[in-house]
């Protein structure tokens, strides 16, 4: 009798997954599914469009009323005033439309004139051009331009 004849080499089914490991797998997938749903709810359903532009907000000002939303525009040159509560400035949209922003809190370090910003807050009334903001976010552009492109390097290595 050969070695193999004495052995039972009939294929056997793999042992069934234990209840504990199945429960663990289900828990992992439920957690991951919940994470995707939470992310979708927060990011996509609430803020697929993260902000309204100045033009859009002014066009729908009556319906917006004093509800809180995010407003985007360019900080108008020479209009920034540092206040005891934060900063106030005019924000330009297209078509020569602008909104006066009175913001509370410390603006981000890049906050300055002529850059796009997003402010979170609300109009003071249905007809007002004043926007009370509780947060300023700087929306930097996709362009990268050297700070001092015309500087020349002297033979000794110093920059002028």
């Amino acid at each position, binding site marked *: 009798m050969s070695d193999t004849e*004495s052995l039972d080499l009939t294929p056997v089914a793999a042992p069934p997954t234990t209840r504990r490991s199945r429960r663990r797998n289900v828990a992992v997938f439920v957690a*991951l599914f919940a994470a995707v749903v939470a992310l979708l709810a*927060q*990011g996509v359903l609430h803020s697929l469009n993260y902000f309204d532009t100045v033009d859009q907000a002014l066009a729908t000002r009556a319906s917006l009323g004093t509800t809180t939303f995010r407003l985007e525009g360019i900080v108008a040159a020479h209009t920034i005033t540092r206040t005891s509560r934060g900063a106030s400035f005019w924000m330009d949209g297209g078509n020569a439309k602008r909104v006066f922003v009175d913001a509370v809190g410390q603006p981000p370090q890049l906050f300055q004139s002529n850059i796009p910003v997003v402010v979170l807050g609300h109009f003071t009334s249905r007809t007002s051009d004043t926007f009370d903001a509780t947060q300023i976010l700087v*929306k*930097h552009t996709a362009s990268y331009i050297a700070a001092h492109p015309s500087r020349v390097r002297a033979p000794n290595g110093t920059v002028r």
Partner: protein
Amino acid sequence: MMKLLSQRLLGPVTLVLLALTVWLGIWVTPPDRIQGNLARLVYVHPAVAWVALYVSFGTATIASGLYLWRRTRSMVMDRVAHCAMEVSAVFIILTLITGSIWGRPTWGVWWAWDARLTSTAILGVFALAYLALRRANDDVEVRARRSAVFALLAAINVPIIHFSVQWWKTLHQNATVFTSTRTLLIHGIMAWTLLISFVAFTLLFFWLLRARYRLEEARDEEVARGLEEALAERQREGVR
């Protein structure tokens, strides 16, 4: 010969290019007009995101597709998809971390629920779900098929992430390199450093993928050897 040479050079070339990126990014390139020195993160974050979304997730998707296609179906494809997805998960997490580090001083917040950031976070959860799915089944073929189908479905999110800044209004900036008008919005030494960083991180991906693949191969060999030893043991028991 060439294959061996390229395999041997992959690691050193990657390290040299990463070092070159660091040197150019910190000491040679000028600060940006608006962002100042914060703009130096442009030599890290976009390249990491490029690897996370397009190179590694793309490799995992293509390998998954090739596994599902009968003509090219092999465990090599499944293994490549698995390893690439693991590297992708790491790079997606790095993308979110570097973006957050950049966002705090520029935007003023660590995180914003805009379409670009949220869809990238969802891709990260998909990558983790893929890895969890692989652990949920011991049957090699069933596991390979299910994870390949899942990878293809998850890949639908990649174009959504890419176009999110064009389709919706986001806090995240628009594209600097892959712009809709094909215009590069970065110039001179800054552009060259950005290009080098893309090449360096792409090579880093292939280096990591190769190392991870070899590890997976060794693990499979170990399992096969263990099975053979168990069979031999059974045979010896049968003889006795």
